[in-house]
């Protein structure tokens, strides 16, 4: 592990501008509700939330790199740690823990004990298939894609569905080698 990279996002979190938590939570809730009314299909809402998250992620990574001073991660393990400890802290105010690595180190779980998105939330029976926090998986996917990692992010545990924590499964599909968009003259 590179010693230079900050191990937690506390310092950054303390310094950046923050938004009122209730406003944030309720706004997200209202968006989800609006999507549910407009799209009617729970599956479609999941997809839209993921897409919105992705769009946020591909821009959020810039903000993250600019403010967090992390250096290049040597492997995917370090990447996961940085997301869990620095990324989540910076933007959500909570930290996640990284567990359940598979043998070849390409799949892991981010476990969130606490999740500000779901304050005040209860899922009614009609939306049992909804992944309420699907936006987060989209954010992670989008952000990682911008640093050349194709990933697949899925929810495996969700407190709103009766599990004890939130578990986000991140699977590294492939590392895209960096390509320069321009052709050099050699």
């Amino acid at each position, binding site marked *: 592990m590179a010693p230079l990279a900050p191990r937690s996002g506390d310092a950054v979190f303390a310094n950046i501008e923050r938004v*009122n938590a*209730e*406003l944030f939570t*309720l*706004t997200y*809730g*209202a*968006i989800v*509700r*609006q999507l549910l009314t*407009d799209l009617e299909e729970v599956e479609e809402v999941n997809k*839209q939330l993921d897409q*919105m998250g992705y*769009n*946020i992620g591909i821009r959020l990574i810039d903000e993250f790199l600019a403010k967090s001073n992390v250096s290049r991660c040597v492997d995917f393990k370090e990447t996961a740690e940085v997301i869990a400890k620095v990324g989540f802290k910076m933007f959500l105010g909570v930290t996640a823990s990284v567990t359940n690595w598979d043998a070849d180190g390409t799949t892991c779980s981010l476990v969130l004990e606490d999740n500000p998105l779901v304050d005040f939330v209860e899922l009614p029976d009609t939306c049992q298939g909804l992944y309420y926090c699907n936006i987060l998986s989209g954010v992670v996917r989008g952000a990682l894609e911008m640093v050349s990692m194709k990933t697949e992010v899925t929810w495996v545990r969700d407190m709103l569905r009766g599990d004890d924590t939130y578990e986000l499964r991140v699977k590294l599909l492939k590392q895209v080698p960096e390509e320069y968009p321009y052709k050099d003259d050699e």
Partner: protein
Amino acid sequence: MVSTYCNRFYSSKPELAARRIEAIGYQVGHQLSERYTMERPRFSDHLEAIKFICKDFWSELFKKQIDNLKTNHRGTFVLQDNRFRWLTRMSVEPTSGNTDASQADSSTSAADNKALPATSMHLYFPCGIIRGALTNLGIPCAVSADMSNLPACSFVIRIKA
């Protein structure tokens, strides 16, 4: 940020998107006002309620109060925020004219002025919040926003009789 994503979603139908964003704001305002008025006495009149919005409500949301409140004493209030937080990061096009942007009132169609369409989209949300909060306080109204000189913007509240 929030509303831009809605925009992408409804990019072909800006009016529809605007209504959606306003509705989201309305819900948020409704719920927030519920929380922030929990421990205070009932407002005796409209002015009291509006003052609450300007002071307590606004500072909860944006860490500052409304800078200027004007009224004609006949149900129209103008709330001016000289440095509206959500607009401080917007780029300002020098050509921006006087655009009466977001019309929250359902009877008036959204303004078609294309000068600052993106920015005006961002104002539907706070408009909705104000309308939601006031409606929850028993004051049905229409809220529109004006952003002729960014990042200052003003919200015009017209109380329905």
